[in-house]
Structures are given as structure tokens and as C-alpha cells.
């Protein structure tokens, strides 16, 4: 196990290092931030002064060395726009995005599991078929447009939910959150629902496949023979057994939900990390983009690492195969 752990950790570090290099090199292709920062009528001397202040006048390799050294110390540069450390700007926005992703996750479970189980119990009925067609739509329709249509329906026509933004924020256990007030929740419903659509389509499929498989098992037949009620069989015996794959997949998908929040946050003008990324791309705020990417890479690598280690802990074949190859 230790050998496997070390190998796997080494791989993760390699991925982070490769991505760091790619991100850094790529940022130089994005464009010259001085064009945005300096006023249009600034002369060459002013532009040089800005370049010097930001360290942009040094050779590329020196900037890269400095970038790595500082990144290892948790410093990913100062935002050109806000003039505070980029990591701080992102961390400030992180709770909003996490809140959105978690509420979205809850939505996708509450929508996906009942529908998936229904479709799994009667796969060839019209209900089962329409749920599956719905899940295909959930997979393939452009998410942002669904978000716009939800705004149109609930905020513009019916006027029962706000069109965007984040509700009043209160501090709970030191974490600023909007999920504990009615107004905050009202702001969360539409963005979280939009974000949840794709994932609930996924949950429907897993739950349906799981239900179909579990229903054929001997223990379900036994439960029936014992005379248990249908609801008890479904809610206790089936549900418990299909939760394992659902939880595994959703855990894996949490990272991609944070990434997907880029779109949802833009549609709903929600002040999270994703909106910050889009704004920073438009303003060529390099340190923020770099910091966002590095944090996302680290989050993804950590999630993948945890999942792989868990699998290896559960299934000895995984670590044996890895140790050999």
C-alpha cells in the first residue's frame, strides 16, 4: 500500500508541475496586460514603469523561476486590478461558489434519485421512457439557455424569484454564507437548479441502472417473499444499495461542478469564483487567472487522488496491478 501511495503521490505532483508550466507559458500568450492597465495615452516611459513594478520586464525564465518559488510559498501574485494577493481574491469568492455547488448537489440528488428509481422500476413504461428522454435532454441542452429561460419564467413573468446576484450574507462559524436566510435561499434556487440539471441527468441514469440491477437480486425476492411492503422494499432495500455508485460519482463530479459554475454564475451574475474568472479573462488580470487555474488543478488532482486511494484501499487488485506496471 505504501509503495502505491508514494507512486500515486508522485504522479499527482507531476501533473501539478506540468499544469503549472503549461498555465504559466499559456498566460504569456493571452496578451499584454500593460495594454489594459496603462491609460491609452500613456507614453513608453509610463508603460515601462508599470512593467517594472509588476516584474514584467524580466526574462521569461526568471519570471517562471520566481513564479514557482512564490507559488510554493502560497503566493500566486497580486491581482493587477484589485492590487491585493490573487489567492485572497479567490478565497474571498470561494464560499459563494462552494455554497452554490453544494446546493446544486443536493438538488441533483433530490431530482435524480426519485426519477431514476421510478424509471428503473418500470423501464419500458411511458413514464420510464419519458424520464430517460428527459435525461438525454438534461445532458445535451445548453445549460446557460435553460438558466435564461428560468429567469424569464420565474423572475420576469411570475416575479416570484430574484433574477440574479447573491442574497444577504451572514457569518456562520466564521464562514460567510447566504444559505441560512430566506432571502439568501431565494437567490440560490435558480442558479443551483441550473447547475444541477446536468448532474441530475447523470444521477437519473446511475439510479435507473442500479435499480434495474438490484431488483433482480435474490435479497429483493426474499424481501418480497417475506411479505414486506413495496414501499419498504424500495425505500430501504433498493435505495441503500444504489446509493453507493451515486455517491461515488457525485463525489467525483463535485470538482466539475465548481468548474461548471463558471457558466451558471455568469448567467445569474452570481459573485463566485467562476464569474471572477470570466471577468479576469476580459480584463487580462493574469495573476487571478493563474491562481484560479492552479487552485482548480490542485482541487481536481486531490479529488482524483482520494478516489484512487479509496479504490486501492477497498480493492487489492488495483494496487497490485499498479505496483507491477
Amino acid at each position, binding site marked *: 500500500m505504501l509503495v502505491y501511495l508514494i507512486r500515486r503521490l508522485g504522479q499527482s505532483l507531476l501533473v501539478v508541475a506540468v499544469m503549472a508550466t503549461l498555465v504559466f507559458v*499559456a498566460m504569456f500568450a*493571452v496578451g499584454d496586460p500593460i495594454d489594459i492597465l496603462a491609460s491609452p495615452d500613456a507614453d513608453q516611459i509610463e508603460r515601462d514603469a508599470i512593467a517594472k513594478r509588476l516584474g514584467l520586464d524580466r526574462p521569461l525564465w526568471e519570471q517562471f523561476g520566481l513564479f514557482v518559488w512564490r507559488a510554493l510559498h502560497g503566493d500566486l501574485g497580486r491581482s493587477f486590478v484589485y492590487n491585493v494577493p490573487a489567492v485572497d481574491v479567490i478565497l474571498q469568492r470561494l464560499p459563494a461558489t462552494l455554497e452554490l455547488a453544494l446546493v446544486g448537489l443536493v438538488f441533483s440528488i433530490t431530482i435524480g434519485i426519485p426519477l431514476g428509481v421510478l424509471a428503473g422500476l418500470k423501464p419500458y413504461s411511458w413514464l420510464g421512457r419519458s424520464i430517460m428522454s428527459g435525461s438525454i435532454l438534461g445532458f445535451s441542452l445548453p445549460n*446557460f439557455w435553460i438558466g435564461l*429561460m428560468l429567469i*424569464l419564467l420565474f423572475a420576469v413573468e411570475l416575479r416570484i424569484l430574484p433574477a440574479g446576484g447573491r442574497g444577504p450574507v451572514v457569518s456562520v462559524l466564521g464562514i460567510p454564507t447566504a444559505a441560512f436566510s430566506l432571502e439568501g435561499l431565494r437567490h440560490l434556487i435558480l442558479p443551483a437548479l441550473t447547475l444541477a440539471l446536468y448532474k441530475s441527468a447523470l444521477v437519473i441514469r446511475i439510479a435507473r441502472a442500479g435499480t434495474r440491477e438490484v431488483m433482480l437480486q435474490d435479497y429483493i425476492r426474499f424481501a418480497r417473499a417475506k411479505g414486506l411492503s413495496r414501499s419498504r422494499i424500495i425505500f430501504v432495500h433498493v435505495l441503500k444499495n444504489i446509493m453507493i455508485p451515486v455517491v461515488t460519482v457525485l463525489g467525483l463530479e463535485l470538482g466539475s461542478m465548481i468548474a461548471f459554475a463558471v*457558466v451558471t454564475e455568469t448567467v445569474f451574475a452570481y459573485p463566485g469564483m467562476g464569474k471572477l474568472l470570466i471577468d479576469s479573462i476580459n480584463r487580462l488580470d493574469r495573476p487571478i487567472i493563474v491562481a484560479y487555474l492552479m487552485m*482548480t488543478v490542485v482541487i481536481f488532482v486531490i479529488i482524483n487522488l482520494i478516489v484512487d486511494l479509496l479504490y486501492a484501499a477497498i480493492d487489492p487488485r488495483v494496487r497490485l496491478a499498479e505496483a507491477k506496471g
Partner: protein
Amino acid sequence: MADYVRADEVAIAPEIPEPASIALSSDPGESLLRRHVDEFLKSPGAVAGLAVLVALALVAVFAPAIAPQNPYDLSKLDIMDNVLKPGERLGSGITAFLGTDDQGRDMLSAIIYGLRISLAVGAISVVIACVIGASVGVLAAYAGGRVESVVMRIVDLQLSFPAILVALILLAIFGRGVDKVVLALVIVQWAYYARTVRGSALVEKRREYIEAARCLALPKSRVVYRHLLPNCLPPLIVVATVQVAHAIALESTLSFLGVGVPVTEPSLGMLIAHGYNYLLSGKYWISTFPGVALVIAIVAINLVGDRLRDVLNPRLAR
């Protein structure tokens, strides 16, 4: 050609014992294509999807002849016509069935031209990504060993990051432009095809006809491209069809975020983004109708893709 058709059959029904597949290919009355077409036509949903898709493609190709107005000829636009409701008449006498946008552009015409760009970007990016991905996948499977494991590691790495994020960053680097969107879509998509083709190539590579081709001392490239690759096509066709819908959705999302196609060549996603500003004041048509067109196209592609999957690979789980 006969060689190709016969080889194809083996891939479609690999579980059928030899005599059966020989019987199929020696029956001159029924060609493989014919069988697939008949099978496809049995699903009314898929036929409807295909009809819609063909209609949309024709509309896109003949846009200049069909659209009531050339939406990008500024001399034809009148600012007095801006943000008209659906069904109102333009100053030039045309009825704007789907309303007009803030420039006084007929939305129906704008959608027809937008469809052109959306469909083209989706189709072209899928074709290029498919060619690259399939080549890489089949070569990796054929080569095996170290080459294969390095290639598949890269594929896994790429697929572990969400496509939308990778494409967003690539476009932030490349800048705006139709060609750049296509390039970004190719980069985020090739790995799917590589994985799909490698999967089927690993199975096909162990079959007797590959062994026979090798024994004949055919050049490697001929074995890979003429014998191995054609037999890996069925699952690839299915993945590619559905992927066109994904590519179109992804492109529209990127354009909505402001990193996709340029303002001069607006796709459907771009039109939706334009209407975003008017949505809150109840002027729904600028965002809604391009979205409806997008949804129709995507649903049609999915219907066709789903049926293709059933026809080409009955054993594949839905």
C-alpha cells in the same frame, strides 16, 4: 470495396459464429447498408430527427436565398426597427415573425445565419477531432506497450478536466475567431475518439483477419488503416454523431461567455448573449428563439445518434 463491407460485418456482429456471418455476406440480395437503413427507418423518432436535421442543414446552406433579410448588410438595417415584437412589420415591409434585435435586425434571418455558423463549427470540429483521435487511438492500440500507456495517460489526464474549462482557457489564450473556436473544440474532443477507437481496436487487433494481414507481410500502415481502423468505425460513428450536439452546445456556451465567435460572425449562442440584456425588461424574443433553434438542432442530432447506436451496436448499453 467488397473487402471493406465484409470486414465491417465482423465488427457489427462479432459474437455471431463464423458460418452465420459468412451466410450474411454471401447473400447478394441484401447489402449491409440496406440492412442498416431498414433498421434505422423502423424508429419514427429517429426518422423525424433526421428529417429536421436535413431541413436545418439545407436552411443553413441556402441561408442567403431563404432568409427574409441579410442581417449583416448594414445598409438593409434600420435602427428605427429596433426591438420590435414578433409579428410586427419592419420599415422595409418585411414582417418580422420572430421580432427584431437592438440593431433592427430580423431575428428569423439572424437565426438562419447563426445556424449556419453553429452547425458548421460543430460539424467541422467533430470531423477534425475524429480523424486525429481515431488515428491516435488505433495507433496506440496497435503499437501497444510504452507508446500506448503514455498516450492513454495523456487521454486520461485531458478527460479528467471538464471540457468547458479547458476550452475557455484555450480561447482566452487564442483570442476570438471561428477558426480558433474550431481549434479549441478539436483539442477538447480528440481524447474521446482516441479512447473509443482504442477500446474497439484492442478487441479487433486479436482477430484472425489481422493476423492474416500480418502473415501476408502487408505494410504496417496498410494493416492499421485498411484493416484495423475500418472495423473500429461503428462505435466511432455513434460517438461522433452525439458529439456534434455536444460541440454545438459547447460552442454556444463559449460564445455566450464572450470568448467564442467574433461579433461579425454571430452563432446562435452569440445571439442569445445579445438578448440577455433585454431579457430582464421582458423582451424575451431575442434570447428565446435562437435558443429554441439550438434546442431543436441538438434534440434532432440526439435522436439520430441514439438510433444509430441501436442499429450499429445492439449490445451497447443505453
